[in-house]
């Protein structure tokens, strides 16, 4: 949906550029082209704080054992699979709207993370991943001295 540079909402965003991007985005939405291109699964939300970033994804009915997470540098990859309901003899589908199968999703984070301290929990069909910012990546405050 978006390009790799996700973190464009910084304090120094160029408003003109942002407007042009929005216009492109709108044209894309109304051109109907998007329907042919499958959206990335699962969709994710991200909250950024001083010391960490929290990524959430809606993954209803997925066995947590079937979800794999990996972090390389500042890229988080979520992959896994959802199994269809096993049909027994004499059972048949009237409707099948839910999707099944494998999914893989990569996301660029705003900073490098402390890989060893990444935590993930799965509750009510929502996957929540907390990724603490790497110590080495944290901004360092430099005091200015006067002579």
């Amino acid at each position, binding site marked *: 949906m978006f390009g790799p540079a996700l973190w464009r909402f910084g304090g120094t965003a160029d408003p003109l550029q942002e407007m042009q991007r929005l216009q492109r985005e709108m044209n894309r939405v109304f051109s109907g082209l998007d329907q042919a291109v499958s959206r990335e699964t699962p969709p994710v939300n*991200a*909250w950024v704080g*001083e010391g960490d970033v929290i990524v959430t994804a809606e993954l209803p009915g997925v066995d947590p054992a079937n979800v794999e997470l990996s972090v390389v540098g500042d890229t988080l990859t979520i992959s896994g699979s959802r199994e269809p309901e096993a049909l027994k003899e004499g059972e048949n589908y009237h409707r099948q709207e839910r999707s099944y199968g494998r999914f893989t999703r990569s996301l660029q984070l705003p900073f490098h993370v402390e890989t060893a301290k990444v935590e993930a929990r799965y509750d009510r069909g929502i996957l929540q991943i907390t990724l603490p910012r790497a110590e080495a990546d944290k901004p360092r405050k430099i005091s200015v001295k006067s002579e």
Partner: protein
Amino acid sequence: MDKAMEYQKKPATTPVEMERTRNRRVYVPKVDIIETPDAMVLYADMPGTDENSVEVTVEKNVLTIAGTVNGKGFEGRSMAYAEYDVGDYERVFTISDEVDRDRIEAIVKNGVLKLVLRKAPHAEAKKITVRTQ
């Protein structure tokens, strides 16, 4: 051609658009419906809901499933990127008389609602043997 169009059936919609008291988005959950010999089993994807926030009601032949989601942010963090929106769920189905109203079973697990709509005994398929004379 115009004549033929007139007789086209129209898809059902709610007669009057209902106003909700909560100012939130409402989503139609995706469902799978499986028919088994003695029941209809419905699975609905409703991430963010649990057994306390899902409501299933049957009134006459209208089955309504509704779920409320409390999507709150995280303290000390601001939303930086969003691909999905959090909202409630609602979907209405018409069920036939053969569903036993008193034996409907609902389970929520991992954000998926499973509804078992058992068929009333008299509606269970009866096999009729065909004989020759």
